[in-house]
């Protein structure tokens, strides 16, 4: 700074800090007075407010000129206590410790594995679903149309023969639902299955059998509200079969995919690596 603070009496080193000033407060008051004048129709307020506004604004701008608005704050305050290091006090993740599961191995399945699993599962599960359509005599398009009933109210009003025909709108909606659900569930499989402890066998059992059965059960309970048409026509045995096939396919694709190395997630893994 070229300008010094007016009186340079002190030679103590100081830190330059903005000088306290009343103008911001006065400016705020001025604006409020003007607003109050508008609200109340009391124009005397506006006059006072206007005057204060000009005065405080100029005062404020004056403080912006180099060297005006600052003062030197002497370094007379006590110092903080020094922070000391404590070595060896951080525990490291080990098997059996809470949160160990989060560690995740240094090598995991790539994200694409989950997506692949979902896509494969989504494709193979259409076979039992369509097979049911054909075997029950309703035809290929029946299951697709039922699925679309999740999103479209008009499906409720369709008769069985209508439900058996191909309908472009329903087909597209059904396709979107099917693809999105398959892919996202596959993605979750991809990242979650490897965290299941024990042998790969358990990952397949849980992902391929237990989870599909769980959600089949949940669907069974809630389908009446979620998708009344489907509830009305569905054959729960075949429904469960297709879910199981999806689960198995997705789980197998996931666990068989190549693993890749990832960044360590926490202090434990790094410790192990070192």
């Amino acid at each position, binding site marked *: 700074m070229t300008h010094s603070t007016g009186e340079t009496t002190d030679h103590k080193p100081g830190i330059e800090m903005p000088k306290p000033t009343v103008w911001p407060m006065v400016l705020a008051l001025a604006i409020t007075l003007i607003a109050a004048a508008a609200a109340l129709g009391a124009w005397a307020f506006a006059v006072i407010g206007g005057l204060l506004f000009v005065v405080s604004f100029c005062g404020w701008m004056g403080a912006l000129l180099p060297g005006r608005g600052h003062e030197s704050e002497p370094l007379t305050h006590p110092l903080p206590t020094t922070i000391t290091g*404590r070595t060896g006090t951080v525990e490291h993740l080990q098997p059996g410790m809470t949160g160990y599961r989060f560690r995740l191995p240094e090598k995991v399945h790539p994200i694409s594995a989950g997506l692949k699993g979902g896509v494969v599962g989504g494709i193979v599960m259409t076979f039992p679903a369509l097979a049911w359509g054909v075997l029950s005599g309703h035809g290929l398009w029946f299951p697709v149309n039922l699925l679309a009933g999740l999103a479209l109210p008009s499906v409720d009003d369709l008769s069985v023969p209508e439900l058996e025909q191909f309908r472009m709108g329903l087909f597209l909606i059904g396709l979107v639902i099917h693809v999105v659900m398959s892919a*996202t569930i596959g993605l979750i499989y991809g*990242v979650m299955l490897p965290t299941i402890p024990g042998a790969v066998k358990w990952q397949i059992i849980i992902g391929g059998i237990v989870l599909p059965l769980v959600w089949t059960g949940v669907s069974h309970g809630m389908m009446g*509200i979620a998708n009344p048409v489907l509830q009305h026509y569905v054959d729960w045995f075949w429904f469960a079969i297709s879910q199981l096939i999806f689960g198995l396919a997705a789980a197998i694709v996931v666990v068989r995919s190549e693993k890749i190395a990832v960044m360590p*997630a926490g202090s434990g893994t790094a410790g192990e690596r070192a």
Partner: protein
Amino acid sequence: MLALLAAASQPENLSILSPASPSAESIKGLLILVCAITGGILVLVEGILIYALVRSRRRAGRDDAEPPQVYGSKPIEIAWTVAPGIVVFVLVLLVGRVLWEVRPDADKPPPGAKPLYVTVVGHQWWWEYRYDSYDGRELGITTANELHIPVSEPGKPPRPVYLNLQSADVCHSFWVPRLGGKTDLLPGRANTMWLQADQTGLFLGQCAEYCGTQHANMLLRVVVESPEEFERYLAEEAKPAIDPTEKTALADKNTFRSLSCVNCHTIRDKQDTRVNGTFGPDLTHLMARKTIASGMVENTPENLRKWVLSPNSIKPGCLMSGFELNEREMNSVIGYLKSLK
């Protein structure tokens, strides 16, 4: 929960869990489903929280040691991004279906239906109903504060009711919980709404958009009747007010007409056009209504008297002023009002 169910089983209630129309029914279904999903998420989250708390309070290890630092994990983050994603995806689909179910197009009633069209005008703080047409018949009846509609019996043609919602002053909202969701009445904009009742009876509701001092008492009454009763109601309402012939009754009528009531109220008379104010409710068939002041008090002679003397004592802040009538005038006015069957 139990209390909720108990309350819901009362005969006249305003619970959205005891629907009496297809749209309220679909919404109830959606509500239960969404509550189940969110309830599941809630249990999951609180469960994890409690588990984490319990585990971390009982953990072994040195006292001065910090626990292992875990910085994050991409796969886990992906999992808990995608899982809510699926839930949201399913919810949006479901909402879409129910949305189209409860808001059908008003100009396309289902085939074979006998639709009723009513214009509802919200006023600070009462409701004006203009019956436009029923089953294709033009009606042109105006009344206030008590809406009568026909029931849709199973197996018979549905009788949907399409309300054309407007406002004379500020925003209001039409809401009869058991018959379906609400729709606002905005000045300068006409909204439509679909009602269809499965049961006969009286259904209560009230204005659900803050509209000024007496918003709390802008009550709604919807009477659902059998189609026959409804026809009878329409026929009654379509008639003009009775024309008194008897002397005192005639005098009563003239007293009423000499007062400023006529500036605000309408009474449809055979030939008369003088009593045609529109600021207040139509009084042509006042006595056909069970309540006055938009459902606040019962329609009894005492209450009418109290009302005309000082509406503010019943409905503080309401837009009808009190009248310092002398005893004779008051008797006449009340006498005349009582004749408006």
